């Protein structure tokens, strides 16, 4: 199995990077680190796709002139162009996702003063408890009057 992994080294590295990114996403308590982990997962998937499209000894998918005004369009000259198109779309979408999640994280920091998700959760719970006690007190006041 290990020998086969060495044959597929790009894919194996992509899977390991995916694992590292996922561990980051699950274990880091800092939101910025979580977003970086998501980006690492993105690039791992792109690396896997692009590696599947590669063929040894072929050129990039840009038509080569044959020297007399024509173009060489034999399919065994160029690597697979479909993964490149897919990944191109993915890279730009991942930038949008990164910017959007960073904006949400900044908003969270603005409100709770921390980027650690546990501490933000703690403050959220405290606020909830505070709100409930004030409501209870108000209800008691109303009942007493």
């Amino acid at each position, binding site marked *: *199995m290990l020998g086969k*992994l060495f*044959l*597929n*080294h*790009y*894919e*194996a590295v992509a*899977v*390991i990077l*995916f*694992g590292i990114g*996922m*561990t980051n996403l*699950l*274990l880091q308590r800092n939101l910025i680190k979580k977003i970086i982990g998501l980006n690492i997962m993105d690039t791992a998937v792109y690396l896997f796709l692009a*590696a*599947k499209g*590669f*063929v*040894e000894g072929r050129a*990039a*998918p*840009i*038509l080569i*002139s044959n020297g007399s005004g024509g*173009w060489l*369009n*034999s*399919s065994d*000259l*160029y690597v*697979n*162009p*479909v*993964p*490149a*198109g897919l990944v*191109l*779309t993915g*890279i*730009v*979408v991942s930038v*949008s*996702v990164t*910017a*959007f999640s*960073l*904006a949400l994280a*900044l*908003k969270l920091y*603005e*409100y*709770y*003063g*921390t980027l*650690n998700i*546990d*501490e933000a959760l*703690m403050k959220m719970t405290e606020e909830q408890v505070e709100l409930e006690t004030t409501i209870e007190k108000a209800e008691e006041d109303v009942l007493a009057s």
Partner: protein
Amino acid sequence: MHEELKNIWKNFFNWVLGNGPRPENEVIPPDPPPDLPFTQKPQDKYSRFHEATIKERYEQWLEIHGLHIFSILYSGLSILTCVVIVCLLLATVAELPPFGHERNPANNEVIRRYVEHGGHETGAQNIVAGLILDYRAFDTFGESAVLFTAAVSVLMILGASRRNKLNKSPSLKSETTSRNFLQRGPPSLDEPILRGVASLSIPAILMMGCVVVINGHLTPGGGFSGGAILSTALILASNAYGPERVHEFYNERTFIVSSSTALMIYALSKGYSFFTGANHFHSIIPKGTIGNIFSAGLILPLNICVGLIVAGTLYTFYSLFSKGDL
């Protein structure tokens, strides 16, 4: 000698871990000026001066509610999940066909069709450009729409409090300033070196971006990469000459108008092309000869549209993150 080497490695690892010793000749930046909003109310419980105490409070909170066991359980379970997933994926990868072999199932008849007929069907020399802007142009349209939507969402999230600030009466203003740190502008960068380098390199970067966009169907590149290069030129200009100078010719209105116009042109022209193609009508769009700059039918104008949207969106992200305004 051995000890020295060991010290260097130790310093390097300390630097990677972020707790290294500080160099002696480092210039410590001066205190922030007192008019910064968050320094006005250090007793605010959401202020960042209480970051250290938040950590302590969190520890106490865990103690009180007995949540330590859950956080340990969470860490253990997530590590277990990741290890299991990676092992499964590695076992799958080991069974995949060998890397880079030409008989792989990924290189099937679809690829042969695209490579052999792509040249004279789309007129593009760059097969990837022909793929994403001709055969699968609706994908790219959706992607541009995703970018535009993301920019507008970030505008809504980070630009909303600006409107609140404008509407608030001056008596309430002092209360809100501690929360409005997102509107803190960039520090004034009055640096002659930066300006000199910027005045030399901005024209070159702009030219490079335009070349990448316009030659998208001949050489690697296209709307996305060219637009990103153009936006870096805008970002550099905003840093060197101040955001006000860029705001003179690129503001919220310009962004909305140019992006929606580009999206409309994209949708209309590609809709026409798909309509005629699907119904076998005669299309008036010429294909041109492969390799010329005016060739490949709609790919050149579509590349310019995508480049405009990407440049505008990425500059909008920068501008919103740096001063909360466009």
